[in-house]
């Protein structure tokens, strides 16, 4: 396997974010929930690492909040990503491999869920939650964002279904579930990993959106909550840039690095899995089996990035 420059850049950025989230809270030694100074003290007013980015509206260390917040956001993203990928994987696998009526029903459901903007369901669910902590939020985000993973997995599983080795497995008497797990799943793993990366990224963004709308987790700092406070307390208007620029950039950095990682992973994995012609069938011609539009070109639909990356790679192969 040859890693591209893009991969190293993306992986480097992701590792950077992970280190900040994992080690940062231990290194900083400043509790994000205690005041170290007054309202919007400038960076450097307070000594040490904790004061490096000044204080927020409650006089708490912005640096400490940023590190703890990143950890929270990543945690939400991971849990939501796992939930969404697991549901999407199971539904997509069963639909794609079983075919027939099962497929019709499952994909009908998936497509309906895809058509309804997920932010709407997330808002409704969050509003209805008796209490909001990071686990319930992650769960809510996870169970609203599985559909496009399901659809992507189904498309792959359908193409695997007709391969010879599946026939062989059937003839040798393997049952449905064992074929699914041992013969179909391995072909999809790289795909699922990529979808998972995108799910994590979009879950982190969704968490921030919710927090900014006032539906964030209570009693814990996340990047979205930092932005929420920054907005509510008018830090932008008073020019306290240290209160809102760091979380803004951190959020962008997380999303960008994960998207970039996905597109470079795609480059890496796909040459073995899919060849030019197959990609073509999935991307350009309208997918007749889908009741709704194929996802494309949307900032909120990371599937578009996957497609973009796939097609991009096709070209790189065509003219080196």
């Amino acid at each position, binding site marked *: 396997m040859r890693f591209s420059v893009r991969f190293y850049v993306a992986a480097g950025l992701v590792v950077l974010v992970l280190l900040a989230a994992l080690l940062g809270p231990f290194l900083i030694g400043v509790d994000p929930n205690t005041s170290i100074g007054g309202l919007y003290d400038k960076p450097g007013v307070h000594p040490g690492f904790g004061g490096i980015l000044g204080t927020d509206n409650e006089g708490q260390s912005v640096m400490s909040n940023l590190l703890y917040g990143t950890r929270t956001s990543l945690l939400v993203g991971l849990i939501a990503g796992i939930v969404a990928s697991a549901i999407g994987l199971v539904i997509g696998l069963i639909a794609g491999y079983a075919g027939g009526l099962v497929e019709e029903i499952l994909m009908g459901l998936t497509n309906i869920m895809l058509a309804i903007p997920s932010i709407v369901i997330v808002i409704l669910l969050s509003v209805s939650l008796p209490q909001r902590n990071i686990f319930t939020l992650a769960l809510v985000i996870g169970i609203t964002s599985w559909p496009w993973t399901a659809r992507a997995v189904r498309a792959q599983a359908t193409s695997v279904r007709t391969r010879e080795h599946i026939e062989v497995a059937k003839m040798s008497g393997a049952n449905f579930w064992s074929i699914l797990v041992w013969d179909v799943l391995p072909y999809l793993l790289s795909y699922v990993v990529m979808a998972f990366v995108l799910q994590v990224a979009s879950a982190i963004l969704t968490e921030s959106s919710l927090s900014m709308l006032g539906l964030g987790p209570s009693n814990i700092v996340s990047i979205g909550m930092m932005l929420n406070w920054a907005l509510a307390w008018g830090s932008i208007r008073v020019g306290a840039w240290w209160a809102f620029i760091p979380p803004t950039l951190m959020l962008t950095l997380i999303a960008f690095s994960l998207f970039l990682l996905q597109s470079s992973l795609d480059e890496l994995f796909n040459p073995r899995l899919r060849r030019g012609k197959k990609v*073509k069938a999935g991307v350009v*011609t309208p997918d007749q089996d889908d009741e709704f539009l194929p996802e494309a070109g949307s900032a909120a639909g990371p599937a578009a990035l996957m497609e973009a990356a796939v097609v991009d790679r096709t070209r790189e192969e065509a*003219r*080196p």
Partner: protein
Amino acid sequence: MTKRLLEAKQVTAAYHTPDGREVRAVDNVSVFVNEGEILGCAGESGCGKSTLGNVLALTARPPLYPISGTLNIDGQVLELGQNNKVPRTWRGSVVSMLPQGALNSLSPTAKIRGLVVDVLKSHGTKLSKDECLDLARDRMKNLGLPTRALDSYPHQLSGGMKQRVITVISTLLNPRLLIADEPTSALDVSSQRALVEMLREMLNQDIMKGVIFITHDLPLLKTISDRVAIMYAGQIVEVANSEDIAERPRHPYSKALLNAVLAPEEDTLAKRVEGIKGSPPSLAKPPSGCRFHPRCGLAMDICTQVMPRAQGNELQFAKCHWSQQHPHEPIRIEDVLRRNDEIEAPVLIKKEA
């Protein structure tokens, strides 16, 4: 005395790989076609036959670069070279290509008539739109095609019909030479026959003057072509009348190829040349001497060192040391395959996986 239509001399073309190497997929190949003739071209996949087709059709594009050679098509001369520009209007009018129609050779969102008009217009026709369409309609009528195909989208045509429509479009400008690259490989037998008959008919009507027909389908080649060129590892190893090559091949590779199970489906390299083990050599590092010697049961010491010269004339020749030394002795397949046991089989298994 028939007139010479194509003289392609010492054509070399290479692919530039991403790591900066040069793979000569066509290496010093000369091809000659007479007027009214169909020249078949066959060989394993990867032997360079399609590359040769692209170079002759003037459609080579990066990463494929023509390196050297001279083309003389009905008096129009072109020096091939990496930086030599091909006049755009030569394509389609001097030499034209006939691709495999099952591929997406037609834009899915344009009607056939649109393409017809665009092709004629891009060659500076003075005809009006309707006259362009009349031209195509006449042509289709003469060839027994339904003219309503003009008003169709590509997906509304059957595979065979699409292929015949593409053939009409490719020859709208009466190209002197038509390069047909596997045009029949996705068609059923009756559509194949229809296409082949149509090509013959077009030659008779003088729509084009000659055809190079590239295919892996040897039985078809025997029925359609006047002469057949067999390619191996970027070179033509034998050219002969199609009768002769079937009955008296003068190159062991031709013999082995013809002996192979003639499976109609592509991609089964192993099946097609069942009998010769091993796979064609890497063109990045071709073997010394005769390129076939590592797989040839008749190989002698000289074969490993000296590239054999062509025996015969430019229209019929074979490049083989053994044939040269045994001018009247037919090649026996058992002899060619003698080395099968020595050659390791895993290569084939790898190909199939």
